[in-house]
């Protein structure tokens, strides 16, 4: 299974629908301070189910909705989709016959949230189960946030067990 594309719309500073194609190998993201690089990694963390606003550098989860600028109004919805390809059809779940999978998360300013797989509404648990089955779970260390690289070293001996357990 491979990550093929990230689509961000109304999430943090991505007011316009933005599609990022992810080729195989190494992709480097560059730009000046404050332009939105870490917001991309926040959007992926959010799409795979992150529940803590603080991890996304927000006070409340609504803070991830585009809050407007001097020239634009705030938006009422944030939506992030991750598209995976190269599935070998071995999934047991009802998505087994698809060769491509898109997981989507939405949040409305009303506080309502939605999760979808290939545009079909589902629960967060379905997304988590699917990602776990499809290809090596999304372990805690799939995303290393800015300034957190030595988290593994500073963690307590018991916290470090997570690394082994996820890999087992």
């Amino acid at each position: 299974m491979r990550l093929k594309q990230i689509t961000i719309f109304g999430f943090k500073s991505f007011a316009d629908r933005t599609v990022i194609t992810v080729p195989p190998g190494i992709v480097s993201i560059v730009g000046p301070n404050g332009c939105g690089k870490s917001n991309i990694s926040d959007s992926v963390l959010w799409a795979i189910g992150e529940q803590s606003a603080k991890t996304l550098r927000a006070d409340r989860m609504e803070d991830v909705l585009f809050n407007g600028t001097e020239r634009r109004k705030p938006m009422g919805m944030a939506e992030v989709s991750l598209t995976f390809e190269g599935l070998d059809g071995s999934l047991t779940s009802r998505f087994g016959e698809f060769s491509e999978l898109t997981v989507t998360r939405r949040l409305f300013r009303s506080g309502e949230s939605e999760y979808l797989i290939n545009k079909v509404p589902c629960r967060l648990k379905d997304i988590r189960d699917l990602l776990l089955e499809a290809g090596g779970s999304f372990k805690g260390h799939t995303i290393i946030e800015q300034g957190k690289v030595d988290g593994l070293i500073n963690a307590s001996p018991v916290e470090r067990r997570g690394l082994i357990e996820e890999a087992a």
Partner: protein
Amino acid sequence: TKNLFLETFTELNRRFGELFGRFFPGGHAALALLDEQNPLESGIEIMAQPPGKRLRTIHLLSGGEKALTAIALLMASFLISPSPFCLLDEIDAPLDEENVRRFTTVLKTMTQQTQFLIVTHNKRTMEIADQLYGVTMEEPGVSKIIGVRLDVAEQLAVSA
């Protein structure tokens, strides 16, 4: 599951030691179970000695040494149980040029099983990318993504 855990632990330890040796030529590192009798509950200790040094605890490592040790552990875990993608946000910030070179050399060997998305300000890390994306805010407060060539990327990282 006790055997499975011990097997995974031993394999992770071996890979970690190997990668640490590539990052710190001549140095040694290892993981240890605090309570060998009870592997399924035990905490895990990290020992890391850069070459020629005799550190009493890993907390005395420098900022760059700690980051590189953590990267070795991260990559070791990817080698035993690959994840489809990995997103790294300025993981190279504490490293000097020599250590950035060692890091990127090892990273290039891991792209068979894992795709890497790396946010960076460092020109050496940009150079190893297969694809470069620039993020700009031509309209203040609104992010846009543009595909860029290496020389443009270096420029973009220089100024707002």
